[in-house]
């Protein structure tokens, strides 16, 4: 189920949180509402951890992770690193890497099997990603943008990309990622997908500006609508989903 939330009156929830299948990281905010929303949804399944990275709250854009591991930029302090190691489950490998492009969340998008990275990423970082996250790494651009981590969000079941992505690109990415992809927007027409929402295999959180159309697209492509009458789902699928691989 997709939920609409706000972080301190800001709709860019993907900036202030990181959601994976094994854990969830949340930024430290003034009020507890943001944390409570995540808690309410996820508390029984996965741990929800409040943290900062390098003293900042934009943790969603600075780190990247999946159920196997978490990669942190070199700006992370030792205390934060330790805190994260303590809070996250043991099978999650927490690693701080030295990468010139320190906003890892903007440069890398991944699910549990495949990762798309910024074309200019270091070879060494690529190896780290392959090791720590246990994924296959592809250097790609999305609709001509090199910040792949910002302009697409995908889980193991589907993905949403920048609205200006051409059909050929969509096909190619779909082949690489082996999931159905759709070009769409979030937060009432915003193209920065990953900043506006965060998603894992069974739930998604979007900014409160997201319109009903966008929400339905998200729910259908990420297959979040479990337990709905299939007829309606099929109909909507036909009219909403553009390309399937």
């Amino acid at each position, binding site marked *: 189920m997709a939920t609409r939330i706000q972080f301190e009156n800001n709709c860019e929830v993907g900036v202030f949180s990181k959601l994976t299948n094994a854990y969830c990281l949340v930024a430290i905010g003034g009020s507890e509402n943001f944390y409570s929303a995540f808690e309410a949804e996820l508390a029984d399944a996965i741990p929800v951890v409040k943290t900062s990275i390098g003293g900042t709250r934009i943790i969603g854009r600075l780190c990247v992770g999946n159920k196997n591991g978490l990669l942190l930029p070199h700006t992370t302090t030792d205390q934060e690193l330790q805190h994260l190691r303590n809070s996250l489950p043991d099978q999650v490998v927490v690693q701080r890497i030295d990468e010139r492009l320190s906003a890892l969340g903007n440069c890398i998008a991944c699910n549990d099997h495949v990762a798309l990275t910024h074309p200019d990423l270091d070879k060494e970082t690529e190896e780290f990603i392959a090791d720590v996250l246990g994924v296959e790494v592809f250097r790609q651009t999305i609709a001509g943008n090199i910040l792949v981590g910002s302009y697409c969000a995908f889980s193991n079941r589907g993905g949403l990309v920048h*609205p*200006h*992505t*051409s*059909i*050929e*690109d*969509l096909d190619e990415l779909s082949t690489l990622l082996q999931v159905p992809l759709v*070009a*769409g*927007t979030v937060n*009432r*027409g*915003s*193209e920065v997908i990953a900043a506006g929402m965060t998603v894992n295999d069974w739930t998604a959180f979007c900014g409160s500006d997201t*319109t*009903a*159309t*966008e929400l*339905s*697209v998200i729910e259908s492509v990420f297959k979040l609508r479990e337990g709905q009458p299939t007829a309606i789902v099929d109909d909507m699928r036909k009219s*909403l989903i*553009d*390309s399937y691989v």
Partner: protein
Amino acid sequence: MMPGSAPAAGGAGMFVPVATAGTVLCCMCGVSMQPNPANMCARCLRARVDITEGVPRHAAVVYCPDCSSYLQPPRSWLRAGPESPELMQILLRRINRPLARLRVSLSGAEFVFSEPHSKRLRLKLRLRREVLHGVVLEQTHPVEFVVHDRLCDNCSRAQANPDQWVAVVQLRQHVPHRRTFLYLEQLLLKHGQASLAIRVAAAPGGLDFFFGSRSHAARLVDFLATVAPIQTQTAKQLVSHDTKSSVYNYKYTFSVEICPICREDLIALSPQASRDMGGLGPLVLCVKVTNAIALLDPLTLRVHHLEEKKYRVYNFKAALTSKQLVEYIVLDIEQESPEISIDGSRYQLAYAQVARLSDFGKNDTIFTVRTHLGHLLNAGDHALGYDLYGANLNDDDMDTAMTRYSLPEVVLVKKSYEKRQRTRRWKLKRLPVEEEATNKAKGEEERRLDEYEAFLRDLEENPESRFSMNLYKNEDYRSEMASTVGDDVPTVPIEELIEDLTLGDDEEDEGEETAQGNTHAGMME
């Protein structure tokens, strides 16, 4: 990204991959559409965002009904016709600032018809504005202007007191004829010096020019000083006085008197004057009046220029003026010396035998005189001159001269041509002079017309006087078939004439020019 599947053209062997844009759903209404920077379909965009929000729908403009001009605040009034580009410019300037503040740009404007007496002007503007991540929307927006009537400053001043003047130039010349004023009128028209005058009125003995400011009047007086020998006196009269700011309002009067000597006047110089001018013969003829008087001694062909100030020392008057010219017929002429030219005019000393036209058939009165018109006269010509033999003069200087020297009996002044009443190829413009309603003697009108006719004939005969004035082509002129009569009558050559400005002529000229230009271009290619 181009819609459709046309491959992008690569230049010079470069491979450009095919990029077909996919369709996205409009985030508001869910309709499938091409992606745009706002990712909303056009209808949702337009519904959501009104780019004309805050743009004024009504405005006011001020109009002066007298001179049909519109106010451009704070103070300038611009003339504009109905639905003209100037009017559109004025109206757009009125709403320019709110548009600029809202960052809306104007991509077009046009007039919507409204009845002129409705006092409303309607414009349809096409506005363009950037909204939401770089999408540019265009929308039409009607604006209605309410027209308020108000007299502009100049019109209200004219309306309040049409006779309001601040300075007057009273131009006078104490001679019985008005030739000087006719000539001055043409000079003023050519140089545009009377354009600032509020009113021009005729007064006995001259003209009055009324001005709205003292400097305009002073400008006219300065101009007159360069073209005529004048003497000026100024006076001022207090009209009102503001005690608090110590501002005094005056009415200024410039009393300008032109020297009474005119062209073709015969003057007898007093012995002292004659001596001061280097022994100029007692009888002199005035040949040219500019800001100095040119006096010609017809017997010695010497010209002396007398300035106004020097003239005031002697203050002599003309003994005989051009009204007293008598017609003579030349019986015989014998050139005495070669033709000389002084000041651009030609003279030649000659002996002539003349008889008065009134005597011609009746008696044998013949005069033998020396004249300066040797280059013009032939036997059988008619000439005009002063009859000193039969004149009865009331002039002290003339009496002194008569007793001292032996004066000639006739002084010939100019050649006379046949009087032919015919239309002229040229015409003159006139100043709008208000005639005084009262004090019109019976023969006054005819006399004025005669004087004007004489003035025009004088212009024909004298190319130098034509030089300083504008002659216009007379469209009503038709060259007469009867040009066999007397070809020696002087006429104004057509090269000196100016085309009178009319719109019809301009369009014709433009048409001709473009036709020529086209043919020229054709030839080039």
